[in-house]
């Protein structure tokens, strides 16, 4: 009887002690994520005089800042959609397009490299390719095509989008490949047996199954581009107003002349990232249904 009491009491006591094992992890998280972010949150609700206010969030509607958000969102959206679409085509080509299997392995490994090859060296590589004296620019000029006769420069918004695609494509390839693998050949055969055309199969079977993953991954790509700072900094040295660049300027010197406004802007960035990750998670869960 006494033994049983001890046994019954044990799990409870053990559980409460067990939480202590997680202290290092949570302490680290509090010190290096919690504290810095709380600082920004609190600061964003503080006016120049130090009193609590919502003024900073109201000032986010000033032209400089709305412009930065609009540009950032546009660049992220365009590269997410274009990168997502072509990344999907590329992954589909090597998985179900009848290409040799070697190409698939090569593409997957390369995608691992390219999706992590971002920042300063990536921006430089594109400057050497499509900059005013870039190798490709000069070749094309030799062929009679002068890129820089039009409005194009690699330092423009369009140029930035071309550069961002270099890490957007491969990320799409990596994430969408398992979903394409999950398209069972039986589904296609069943559809064809019932007289469906290729188009009908896509419209009625494949796309509805892939849609949550496709859209979800594009949202992930959106966040991926939205949070990137180094590539844009190296490429444009701040010429294009993007939110991460504006925040960067705010870190180095209070360019907005209002610390609180800088914090509010950082919060705006976190909120947009959080929103996109939340939607991604929901869609991912929905996509899981077809996985087994």
């Amino acid at each position, binding site marked *: 009887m006494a033994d049983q009491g001890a046994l019954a009491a044990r799990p409870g006591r*053990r559980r409460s002690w*067990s939480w202590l*094992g*997680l202290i*290092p*992890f949570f302490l*680290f998280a509090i010190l*290096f*994520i919690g*504290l*810095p*972010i709380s*600082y*920004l949150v609190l*600061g964003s609700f503080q006016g120049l005089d130090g009193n609590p206010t919502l003024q900073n969030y109201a000032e986010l509607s000033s032209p400089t800042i709305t412009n930065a958000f609009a540009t950032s969102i546009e660049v992220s959206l365009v590269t997410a959609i274009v990168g997502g679409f072509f990344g999907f085509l590329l992954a589909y*080509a090597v998985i179900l*397009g009848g290409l040799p299997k070697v190409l698939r392995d090569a*593409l997957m*490994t*390369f*995608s*691992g*490299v*390219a*999706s*992590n*090859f971002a*920042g*300063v*060296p990536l921006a*430089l*590589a594109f400057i*050497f*390719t499509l900059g005013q004296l*870039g*190798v*490709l620019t000069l070749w094309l000029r030799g062929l009679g095509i002068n890129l820089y006769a039009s409005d194009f420069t690699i330092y423009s918004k369009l140029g930035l989008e071309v550069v961002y695609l*270099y*890490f957007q*494509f491969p990320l799409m390839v*990596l*994430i969408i490949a398992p979903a394409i693998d999950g398209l069972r050949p039986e589904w296609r055969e069943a559809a064809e047996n019932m007289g469906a055309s290729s188009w009908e199969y896509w419209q009625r079977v494949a796309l509805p199954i892939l849609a949550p993953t496709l859209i979800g991954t594009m949202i992930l790509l959106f*966040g991926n*581009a939205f*949070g*990137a*700072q*180094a590539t844009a*900094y*190296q490429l444009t040295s701040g010429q294009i107003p993007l939110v*991460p660049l504006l*925040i*960067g300027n*705010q*870190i180095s010197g209070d360019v907005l002349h209002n610390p609180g406004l800088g914090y509010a802007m950082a919060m705006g*960035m*976190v909120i947009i*990232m*959080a929103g996109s*990750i939340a939607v991604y998670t929901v869609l991912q869960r929905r996509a899981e249904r077809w996985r087994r």
Partner: protein
Amino acid sequence: MRRRRGRVAWWLVFLIGVLYFVLPLYATFVFSLKAKPAFSAYADALSDPLFAQSLGYSMVVGIVTIFASLALIVPTAYWVQLRVPRARSLVEFVTLLPFVIPAVVLVFGLIRVYSRPPLPFTHTDLGSTFLLVAGYVVLSLPYMYRAVDAGLRAIDIRSLTEAAQSMGAGWITIILRIILPNLRVALLSGAFLTLAIVVGEFTIASFLARPAFGPYLNLLSGYEVYQPAAVALISFGLTWLAMIAIAVIGRGTRVRVQIGGAR
């Protein structure tokens, strides 16, 4: 007939993709060769003492980051799985926070909190480097935790732990001699991904004014013409090496760690 035409179209898609991926690298290479005599851009880059110093600094920071990250994550993931499964979703949530907090926002907060009393870390080199490592450990949380967690699920840690305990092993022995060796693939993959990301990282390093490889390349591009092309290619080569290492280590297993995210 229709199938064949389809295949031609897929080849076309593939070739366009290859062209887009290869052109910038090839152009960078061609550009780097414009320095006369041939390959002098590489010779100059490699003989620049700052090159070795910054690359060395970033490598050391990367290695410290890997060990710090593992020391934090392995015991935590192990403990969550074995003793406090109820904490799993909370721990997972924390490890995914870096997806929501961009590096530029993280370093913003870190600098504001740790640049004044009572915690004036940024006033000393060592303090700033410490903050840099802390920032990188945060960046590594999502994929490191996933890798370790997946690795732990693949082995029966409860039986292993009980067997070790019945033979008198303590917690430290269990983690170092039983759990870690069984997680080899996951740990090494995570480690190489961390290295690939940390060595070229720019945002956090530059705001903390660290003499790291990313900021070095950025500075170099301001005053040299061909050398940066050489260094950019070397940097790409390093990423390549890390990814090949991951592919080789992970061959034949289901652990897939590849995605670090953009910068």
